[in-house]
């Protein structure tokens, strides 16, 4: 057994090596076909190492291991270290990332088979896994930013993977730019924290300094909200969620790994990491919870009317991320360990069932000849039996069907919200509203999930022309990951949390969650709250039943009163159009004005530039290319010079 930090560094190094190998494999047509091997092997090895690390952490003597600080760069007072930290939070994330990445890599090797950019795809995927692991392990804000941008870059490259397609290129650009808006706030927040935190950039030192020297609460709230800006961008929260549905232009495994399971949860992870700061400012916390609540409800509503299977899942992801932020936002009102535990638990289970749903959707796409519109096919139960079952598992888990993963995690979030509404927090009423909001969202979630399920798999069999006449189940390399993830989606939640509280207890050992206590936090016992369980179960089942009633024959039909509502949802509440009119249009007008002014400046510059050219035209004939003429000019010049010396200087 070796040091936990060494193990963590090994986990970090494996995907990086895989990225280099995959990149090198592009040199040759033969090796290019094997480009998936480095990623699969590296992820599998990293997953094994992560499990070993988990074991070490479980019976470890310390709750946190930090690597020796190496100076990354130093400038004046700024001394930035390359340090990584291993604690329960990071370990759980590492295990989840590497495990899911392994199966998604396996799935991709079948899904992307024969694609032109095979090696490019796997190189970027490997680099993404590297960056994500680095982001989880980083113990320094600037290092965190570096990896944060690394995952952003990979997301950009993979969303724009089919860069020949204009819509994909536009989506990649949109994802990058919208995320950039949040990142600006994130960086400003880091600068502010650096100023407040005694010049430290290492997370643990910074938090300790702020705990010991409490800064001005207003300033700290500002810093927290700025950090939250970064999380809003990266985790697609209101109002910056618009990039995530468009990001579905990328290949489906990318959507599963980056835009459902890992990268979009980076914002949640960031807030969990920075919990010691957030619990100190309840104002920031209620904003976090509020934004999460708005996002959850809005995205759930938008998912109702969509006909694109992947977009439904994307909106669902946005909605579930809002759920997590709601849980995080209760951190000051109740004990942060419980709140973060709830959020992280939902993150954990969500990663499984959402990756499963995306992969299943990918399997459907694969069989349907890349058609993803759920109105164009139906009744696929017979055609895709395995996919049907795995999709059902995922959908049930997402909808919160009792005893499945999603049920338990969602239940924990609802519990944290009720506890917060009963706490001494000044915003307890707001938390109660958020609780009602979460219940409504849970019902909507169950409805839209099963709407998609019924429209896809029930009713008469209808297969689009693009699929040809040989629509068939996907190959083994794709179905095995589906089945593994389905088992995970069904059982993982029930195994780790509700009866043993193992997950929360383990997470609770994270020093960042135990060291800092909010002054008004309400201690929460882990117990099965039967009232809540019955409420959420009934909501889920009500949603499913409603979907069954409406869509069991696999067709959309007019619904009278709520049709306008659905149309509104289908058009995404015209949010993109509103953004266009409010932000893009004025920017375009401004840009036009600037261009006119620039043209004026250009003209001025050209005028200035034309003068020397005019002067040059006068003396240009001197350059006639005759060597003797040049020598003559030299001789005359020398003569004049000598004459000057003799007649002037000698006197």
């Amino acid at each position, binding site marked *: 057994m070796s040091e936990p930090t060494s193990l963590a560094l090994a986990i970090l190094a494996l995907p990086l090596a895989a990225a280099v190998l995959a990149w090198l494999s592009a040199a040759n047509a033969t090796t290019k076909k094997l480009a998936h091997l480095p990623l699969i092997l590296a992820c599998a090895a990293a997953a094994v190492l992560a499990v070993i690390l988990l074991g070490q952490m479980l019976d470890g003597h310390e709750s946190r291991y930090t690597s020796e600080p190496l100076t990354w760069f130093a400038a004046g007072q700024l001394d930035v270290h390359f340090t990584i930290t291993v604690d329960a939070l990071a370990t759980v994330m590492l295990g989840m990332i590497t495990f899911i990445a392994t199966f998604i890599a396996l799935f991709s090797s079948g899904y992307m088979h024969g694609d032109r950019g095979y090696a490019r795809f796997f190189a970027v995927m490997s680099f993404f896994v590297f960056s994500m692991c680095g982001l989880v392990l980083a113990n320094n804000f600037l290092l965190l930013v570096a990896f944060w941008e690394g995952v952003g870059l990979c997301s950009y490259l993979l969303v724009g993977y089919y860069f020949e397609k204009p819509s994909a290129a536009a989506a990649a650009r949109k994802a990058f730019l919208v995320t950039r808006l949040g990142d600006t706030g994130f960086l400003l927040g880091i600068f502010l924290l650096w100023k407040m935190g005694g010049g430290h950039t290492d997370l643990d030192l910074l938090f300790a300094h702020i705990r010991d020297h409490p800064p001005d609460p207003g300033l700290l709230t500002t810093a927290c909200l700025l950090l939250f800006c970064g999380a809003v961008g990266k985790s697609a929260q209101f109002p910056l969620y618009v990039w995530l549905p468009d990001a579905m232009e990328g290949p489906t495994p990318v959507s599963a790994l980056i835009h459902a399971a890992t990268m979009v949860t980076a914002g949640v992870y960031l807030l969990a990491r920075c919990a010691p700061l957030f619990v100190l400012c309840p104002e920031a916390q209620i904003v976090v919870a509020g934004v999460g609540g708005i996002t959850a409800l809005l995205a759930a509503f938008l998912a109702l009317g969509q006909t694109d299977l992947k977009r439904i899942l994307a909106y669902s992801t946005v909605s579930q991320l809002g759920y997590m932020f709601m849980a995080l936002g209760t951190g000051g009102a109740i004990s942060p360990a419980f709140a973060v535990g709830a959020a992280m638990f939902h993150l954990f289970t969500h990663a499984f069932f959402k990756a499963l749903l995306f992969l299943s959707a990918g399997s459907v796409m694969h069989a349907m000849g890349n058609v993803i519109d759920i109105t164009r096919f139906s009744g696929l139960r017979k055609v895709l039996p395995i996919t049907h079952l795995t999709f059902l598992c995922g959908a049930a888990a997402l909808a919160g069907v009792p005893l499945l993963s999603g049920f338990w995690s969602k239940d924990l979030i609802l519990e944290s919200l009720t506890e917060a509404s009963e706490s001494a927090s000044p915003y307890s009423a707001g938390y109660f509203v958020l609780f009602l909001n979460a219940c409504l969202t849970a019902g909507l979630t169950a409805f839209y999930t099963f709407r998609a399920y019924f429209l896809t798999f029930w009713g008469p069999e209808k297969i689009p022309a693009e699929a040809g006449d040989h629509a068939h189940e996907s190959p083994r390399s794709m179905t095995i990951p589906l089945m593994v993830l389905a088992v995970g989606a069904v059982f993982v939640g029930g195994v780790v949390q509700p009866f043993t509280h193992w997950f929360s207890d383990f997470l609770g050992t994270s020093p960042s969650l135990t060291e800092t206590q909010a002054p008004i936090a309400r201690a929460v016992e882990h117990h099965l709250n039967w009232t809540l369980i019955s409420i959420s179960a009934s909501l889920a089942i009500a949603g499913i039943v409603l979907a069954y009633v409406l869509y069991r024959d696999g067709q959309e039909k007019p619904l009278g009163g709520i049709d306008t509502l659905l149309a509104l949802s289908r058009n995404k509440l015209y949010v993109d159009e509103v953004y266009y009119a409010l932000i893009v249009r004025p920017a375009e007008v401004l840009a036009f004005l600037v261009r006119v002014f620039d043209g004026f400046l250009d003209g001025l510059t050209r005028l200035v530039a034309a003068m020397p050219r005019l002067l040059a035209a006068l003396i240009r004939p001197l350059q006639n290319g*005759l060597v*003797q*003429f040049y020598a*003559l000019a030299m*001789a*005359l010049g*020398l*003569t004049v010079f*000598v*004459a000057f*010396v*003799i007649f002037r200087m*000698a006197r």
Partner: protein
Amino acid sequence: MLFALSPTQETTGYVAVATLLAIAGVFLLLPRPRGRFVPGGIALLIAAAAVFGTWLYRTFGQPMPDVIGSALFWLFSAGAVVFGTVLVTQRNPARGALAFAFVILSTCGLFLLLAATFLMAATIIIYAGAIVVTFLFVLMLSPSHAPTDENDRSREPLAGALAGFAFVGLVLLALFQTSLTNQRDHLLAQLVTPLEREKLAAAIAQLDAAEKALAGDTSTAVAREQRLAAFDAAFSPVRNALAEVVGVSSAEQIHSPQEGSLPQRLGRLGTVSGGPEKLFRADVAARQTLTQAATVRELLHRVPPTVEAIISMPAAGQPVDVATAQAEVRKLRDAVVLLHGAGLMPARNVANLGYGLYAEHLLAIELAGVLLLVATIGAVAISHRKREPLPTPDAKNAPAGVEGVQ
């Protein structure tokens, strides 16, 4: 001259006239399709040369103290200038090359006058080779007798002649100014001026006479008196002449060597060039000359009493040692001869040149050798005719396995 002019104005007038005449003459002579007037050009150039020679003669006097040297100088410099003009104005490049050969020969004559025997030989050898090669080139590359652009046209004849001769006139003016102001001191000071040299030569002749005067009958006291009187008669002009040059005339003044033309002129050199540790080579020579002058001074003071003592007071029972006295006089004569020759070229020109080159300029010699080697290789590389690549047969170009696959 007709008008009362300052030397500078006179020189400016001469040089300007000579320059203008030369410009006009060369302009007329330069090859052109139309407007070339050879007799007029030659006449103008002769006039220019006459004005130039007159100025040279009037301003700087005879170039050499002797008639033969003078005649040779005029001959060689006239040859160099005339054949140089022919090279510049000659239409036929082959004849131009021939004229250049004569320029080289004339230059070598001037080298000989300047005691550069080795350079004379080396220049003839090297340039003779180069000129022969150039002849070959001319014959090879200009076979036709028809008029050609390069031989029968000039590029900017007036402006070119103006630029060149204006430069020449300016440099001549500068030379004149330098000759006026910087004769005495500075590094360019002559070690022994011709005037001094004349005096020294006369002194040598007188010393020979004095030595001869000592020989003869010395058996009687009267005879010895006669000998001494003859010696004194021969020696006294020597004393005066040498005193003018090296500075001492009596015993009291031997330790204050501040008179005499040589010490006055050269004694300041050490201070001008910044002390003995920063001596230039010319200063070293000046120092040696001063040392030689000091030797002469010392001997001049010592020799007459010694000779008198030997002649007038012979040891008892011994004949007068005339040979010793003559040796004393000869010692002085030798010292004066050495001083007379100070600053003249050593006789062993080649040996000394080689010694100087290898002792002091070894690195430069090596670099020059490397330069020559590089130039040789470069010349070969430049003029090497690239061979056309041989056309490859098509069968070789085709991939080997194509037929088998088909």
